[in-house]
């Protein structure tokens, strides 16, 4: 094609294009391949017997009635797993977790036994028929109560162990104490501060609830001694390594495949007992075994999110310059610490909590606690506790603003890290790569006409008969994503690099595989776009595959917004290796030196002679036909990328709410979300994920909860109560962007789409609290459902005169 360069560039459908998605064809025709779609010859079905009690000893398990049901092949308990030493397994957080309850259950719905049957209907009947006798024990569900001297002992297996993997344990229900920052400097700032504020900020437990639940098909081939497992996993290679270690099967004979995944959001990172049981059952029976959980099981037992009980303090000058931050957190980890964090960080990346602000002194302490609840903590688009960190600082800034009577946008402007200060080293030691926070907030304020909104609010506040309270919420967040440099980040000892392998075929199309795994983020499209621009091949002709550990290079998976920062860099650098070799071949074909060539969109041109060029396709053919001396045939490369740093996307969000003073219902009038994720690969895909993340954030802030009663029963564990908004409840979102590239990333890209969740949740709280600010309210704990907001109204508001 000899069209002009800009036409050829459009035809590539590469970086920056809002091109339609390559993966859609199968999904819109019902031809996706999710775990529960998989059928294998001889496949059996597994279901799980679960404990109705939160804390109990198991006195007996009677399998006989279940085994008597025709079509039931096996019923297994911890006793059956003991000879294999698989009744307990290591967690990603350095703890151990029961695979099947071993003499004791620690949380409601914990796995007690498994049944394997011909089909799922028989398996369901068999689960009912297993008779378990329990001796109830006193449960503890409040993490503060769990640390009291006489609190029930949850972990008998840790009796006497005063050291955990993260240091000293100060109580039988204590997991770890973790600290960051400089407590002396922080204390000094508070001692000399003109103004201080302190606020308790509980962040309740919620659950990511992707539409597809977790499951797997484990298929052990007894003839080949090979184990294949199809699994809903956001990190298939890590699963392979762990499964090999647990089972003793060499990693070379274990194949883990993450097929199409119906939403992850961090719910599908951990290795759940159900997976281990299915694998064991398959090995024992020599047949494929499928396990797919139902929704109640998913909400009740898989990785929850948050449950951070935070107390924040800010020290400041009288004119609102923040001089110090102190944070204490009680972190409820449930009965086992199965948190999916990089191993050095039991509180994840929580110490990003100085946020977008130039705070000179800071200290944070997090105490992990066991309770009789399901294990987890890190999930739901949290980027390793960044949701908690941003919630903390954005709420504290509002609390400080209210104390000082300062405008909530102005106080942020006053404290932002300035553009000139980047790269910026925070008081917790993070080196922020780039940012322009003032520009982002100014753009948002201009777009919504902020002054007019505040004027309207003042008018409404002056009207005693106004049927609504109006609130304006602002959040200016900085995230830390792209875990991460291997010197800082490892999962079970594997560094958090990622990888890409690209192979260009003789006829000029290509296939590429990465160590990440899409769950709806559109990697099949966006990764192809990166390669398209790097290599000058249309993204239509680049096949992207992920998720099969037998073909994909090793990677740490997709969560924490790490795909673009880490795998995206690997993709660019692998492509550039190919590009470098291609240049040599082109030079050889054109009989010039490499220095005489310049690259234009899809071809190497001889400088000064437009007629003499070779396209990447020409080069590909030549690479297979007769490469120049000294070069191997073929055209491919692999790159493993160990990032030099995290990346720091940021944004400014503004929310306007109107609260019905009679019912407590909150209407989101407007939500304006500006994101800066650096270089944008596909704006359409970014915007779609922003919509989704804002909607999930809306659900968290306005209705999601996991209430436990004193007996440890999880109330509201179905979709009747767990708030997933429909299209009717969901607000309309306005999105915007700025572009501040990351200086250390090959594409300047930072990663995106946890940001709308990270940023929107405190924005909703800030808006709701702002609606009450003139009545003296400084904080309201989520969820801001109508009932809870109404209770706040009763405390501070006068009833509206009936008309």
């Amino acid at each position: 094609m000899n069209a002009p360069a800009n036409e050829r560039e459009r035809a590539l459908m590469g970086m920056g294009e809002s091109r339609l998605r390559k993966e859609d064809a199968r999904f819109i025709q019902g031809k996706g391949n999710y775990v529960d779609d998989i059928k294998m010859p001889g496949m059996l079905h597994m279901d799980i017997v679960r404990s109705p009690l939160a804390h109990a000893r198991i006195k007996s398990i009677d399998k006989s009635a279940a085994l008597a049901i025709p079509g039931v092949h096996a019923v297994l308990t911890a006793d059956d797993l003991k000879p294999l030493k698989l009744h307990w397994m290591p967690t990603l957080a350095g703890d151990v977790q029961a695979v099947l309850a071993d003499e004791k259950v620690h949380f409601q719905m914990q796995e007690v036994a498994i049944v394997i049957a011909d089909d799922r209907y028989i398996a369901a009947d068999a689960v009912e028929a297993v008779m378990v006798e329990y001796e109830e024990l006193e449960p503890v569900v409040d993490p503060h109560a769990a640390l009291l001297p006489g609190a029930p002992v949850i972990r008998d297996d840790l009796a006497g162990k005063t050291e955990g993997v993260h240091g000293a344990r100060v109580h039988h229900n204590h997991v770890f104490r973790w600290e960051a920052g400089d407590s002396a400097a922080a204390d000094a700032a508070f001692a000399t501060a003109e103004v201080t504020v302190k606020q308790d900020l509980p962040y309740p437990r919620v659950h990511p609830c992707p539409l597809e639940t977790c499951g797997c098909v484990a298929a052990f081939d007894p003839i080949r001694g090979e184990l294949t497992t199809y699994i809903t996993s956001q990190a298939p290679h890590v699963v392979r390594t762990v499964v090999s270690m647990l089972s003793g099967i060499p990693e070379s004979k274990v194949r883990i495949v993450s097929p199409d995944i119906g939403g992850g959001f961090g719910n599908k990172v951990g290795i759940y007992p159900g997976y281990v049981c299915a694998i064991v059952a398959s090995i024992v029976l020599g047949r494929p075994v499928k396990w797919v959980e139902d929704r109640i099981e998913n909400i009740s037992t898989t990785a929850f999110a948050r449950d951070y009980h935070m107390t924040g303090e800010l020290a400041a000058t009288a004119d609102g310059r923040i001089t110090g931050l102190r944070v204490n957190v009680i972190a409820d980890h449930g009965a086992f610490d199965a948190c999916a964090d990089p191993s050095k960080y039991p509180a994840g990346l929580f110490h990003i909590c100085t946020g977008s602000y130039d705070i000179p002194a800071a200290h944070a302490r997090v105490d992990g606690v066991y309770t009789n609840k399901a294990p987890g903590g890190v999930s739901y688009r949290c980027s390793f506790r960044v949701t908690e960190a941003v919630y903390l600082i954005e709420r504290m800034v509002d609390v400080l603003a209210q104390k000082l009577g300062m405008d909530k946008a102005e106080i942020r402007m006053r404290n932002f890290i300035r553009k000139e200060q980047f790269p910026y080293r925070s008081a917790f030691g993070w080196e922020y790569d780039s940012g322009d926070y003032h520009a982002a907030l100014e753009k948002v304020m201009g777009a919504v006409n902020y002054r007019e909104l505040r004027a309207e609010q003042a008018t409404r506040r002056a009207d005693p008969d106004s049927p609504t309270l109006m609130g304006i919420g602002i959040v200016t967040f900085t995230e830390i994503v792209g875990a991460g440099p291997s010197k800082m980040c490892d999962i079970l000892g594997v560094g958090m690099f990622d990888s890409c392998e690209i192979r260009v075929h003789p006829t000029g199309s290509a296939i590429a595989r990465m160590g990440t795994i899409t769950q709806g983020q559109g990697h099949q499209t966006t990764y192809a776009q990166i390669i398209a621009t790097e290599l000058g091949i249309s993204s239509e002709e680049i096949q992207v595959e992920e998720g099969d550990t037998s073909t994909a290079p090793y990677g740490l998976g997709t969560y924490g917004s790490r795909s673009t920062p880490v795998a995206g860099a690997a993709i660019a650098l692998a492509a550039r290796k190919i590009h470098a070799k291609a240049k040599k071949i082109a030079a050889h074909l054109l009989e010039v030196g490499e220095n005489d060539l310049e690259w234009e969109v899809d071809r190497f041109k001889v400088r000064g002679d437009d007629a003499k060029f070779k396209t990447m396709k020409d080069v590909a053919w030549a690479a297979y036909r007769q490469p120049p001396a000294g070069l191997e045939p073929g055209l491919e490369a692999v790159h493993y990328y160990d990032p030099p740093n995290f990346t720091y996307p940021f944004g400014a969000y503004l929310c306007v709410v109107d609260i019905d003073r009679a019912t407590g219902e909150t209407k989101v009038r407007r939500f304006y979300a500006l994101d800066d994720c650096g270089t944008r690969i596909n704006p359409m895909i970014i915007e779609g994920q922003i919509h989704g993340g804002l909607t999930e954030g809306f659900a968290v802030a306005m209705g999601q909860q996991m209430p436990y009663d004193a007996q440890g029963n999880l109330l509201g564990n179905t979709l009747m109560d767990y708030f997933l908004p429909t299209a009717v409840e969901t607000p309309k979102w306005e999105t915007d962007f700025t572009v501040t590239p990351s200086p250390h990333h090959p594409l300047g890209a930072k990663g995106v789409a946890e940001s709308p969740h990270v940023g929107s949740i405190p924005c909703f709280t800030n808006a709701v609290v702002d609606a009450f600010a003139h009545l003296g309210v400084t904080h309201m704990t989520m969820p801001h459902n109508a009932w809870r907001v109404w209770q706040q109204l009763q405390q501070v508001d006068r009833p509206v005169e009936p008309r």
Partner: protein
Amino acid sequence: MIPPSFDYHAPSSLPEAIALLADLGDDAKLLAGGHSLLPMMKLRFAAPAHLVDLNRIDELRGIREEGGEVVIGAMTRENELIGSALLAAKVPLLVEAARQIADPQVRNRGTIGGDIAHGDPGNDHPAIALALDARLVLAGPRGTRTVAAADFFHGTYVTECAADEILAQIRVTPFAPGTGSAYAKLKRKTGDWATAATAVVLRMAGGVVVEARVALTNLAPTAIRVPAAEAALVGTAPVATAVEAAAQAAMAACDPAEDLRGDAEYKRAMAGEMTRRAVRLAAQRCSG
């Protein structure tokens, strides 16, 4: 997710269904829309040995006018109520209520009869039936009998319908001129049961309220009428002067159970607010 085993019967006439029920006794349950029963069976909270499917019985369907009454077959779907020109003209409260029940797919299957006969205080049609003074026609082995809605709801999951009877029809009087109605339902999200809901029917003549009926959903062990609210409204002009009294009466009459939707205090207050809104809206519609 998987129901326990049962035997399935699909009679094609009402007499056949009645005979089956008599034969199978307590072990049988009727399958109407299925969106209350089947979820309970899937969670194994209910395990009937037999299901008698009413969905193939034509005589249980249809909406018509007969002898000055509007007659609605018990197996009429919520979406059929919504789409009925006859109801829109003569008993618009039913259309308004049906629109606020569940979601579009559930409304394609859920029936007015099932919603009433289940005895669930969270269902909407019981309060609507009370507000309409509906007559419920029960068919059984001992023949057919008509029960006033006011005499139908005895307790949570306990109705006047005997185990061997089938609710066959709901008969209501078309609205007289000057009648306005409203159903104000507060809920957490689309598809949820009411946190609190009030049904109001008012008839005005010469600007004065001459008839009032007020009924509450999910604020007591059954749907309830609030005679004190009705008394407060009758004889008033304009209605605005009595709105607060009606609301207070509703709050006094209700006996809400605490759940994740709210505690008794919140639900009681919302009973008041939904009553205010329903009365105001019904009054506006009287002139229309």
